[in-house]
């Protein structure tokens, strides 16, 4: 699975406006809603589910300025997501205590376990690719971010 298969260009927010965790999640879920009109979910419910999990189960801020917030939504047909980069430093209670600037939000129907693991694999593989995060932080537009995604996908094939 490729990142662009569950994060379409419409679901990319090149410059997140929010300065806190809740605002960022709201922006990303709103982008996901716009990008996937065929999927039925209430934006507020997804935001609530993600924030609830972050507070109750622990942060998905995995360190190095990256977070992978997610929620399971029964009504989804497939895995959908959104990506956001921020010029602000967002406090996300990350495991290394560092602020987060890159967000990969993933929403998955509960039954699609294997696909969800594949989406996580694609995301983590890209994040581990040299310079991927550096290039994403430097990218200013949706087009530039898309190019970074595609470059990482090309590298993953080799």
């Amino acid at each position, binding site marked *: 699975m490729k990142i662009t298969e569950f994060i379409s260009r419409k679901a990319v927010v090149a410059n997140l406006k929010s300065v806190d965790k809740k605002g960022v999640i709201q922006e990303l879920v709103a982008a996901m809603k716009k990008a996937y009109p065929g999927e039925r979910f209430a934006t507020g419910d997804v935001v609530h589910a993600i924030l609830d999990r972050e507070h109750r189960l622990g942060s998905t801020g*995995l360190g190095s300025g990256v977070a992978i917030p997610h929620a399971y939504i029964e009504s989804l047909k497939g895995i959908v997501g959104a990506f956001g980069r921020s010029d602000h430093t967002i406090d996300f209670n990350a495991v290394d205590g560092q602020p987060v600037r890159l967000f990969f939000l993933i929403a998955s129907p509960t039954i699609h376990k294997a696909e969800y693991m594949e989406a996580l694999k694609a995301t983590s593989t890209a994040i581990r690719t040299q310079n991927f995060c550096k290039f994403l932080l430097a990218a200013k537009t949706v087009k530039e971010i898309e190019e970074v995604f595609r470059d990482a996908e090309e590298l993953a094939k080799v």
Partner: protein
Amino acid sequence: MIHMIHERFITILNRKGLHVRPAAAFAQAAARFKSRIRLLRDGRAFDGKSSLELLMIAAVPGTSLTLQAEGEDAAEAVETLARFAANRFGMEEDD
């Protein structure tokens, strides 16, 4: 000083697999040991102290992995981390 390599098979019991939070929990638990910790799948090794590498395994429920530790506290590391895996990485059912 040469250290023994300690190994044990572990099975992923979490019903959603080795996903974000279990991976983060394992990496944090592994980081407490001095030994090098690795998880092996199909001959490929993944750094047990990196949550991102653990996500790259894409281990669905029921996946068997080899837990390997090498270093002065390897025996204790394998014992502790294998028990942690058996306990679903400390996650409740709603993980």
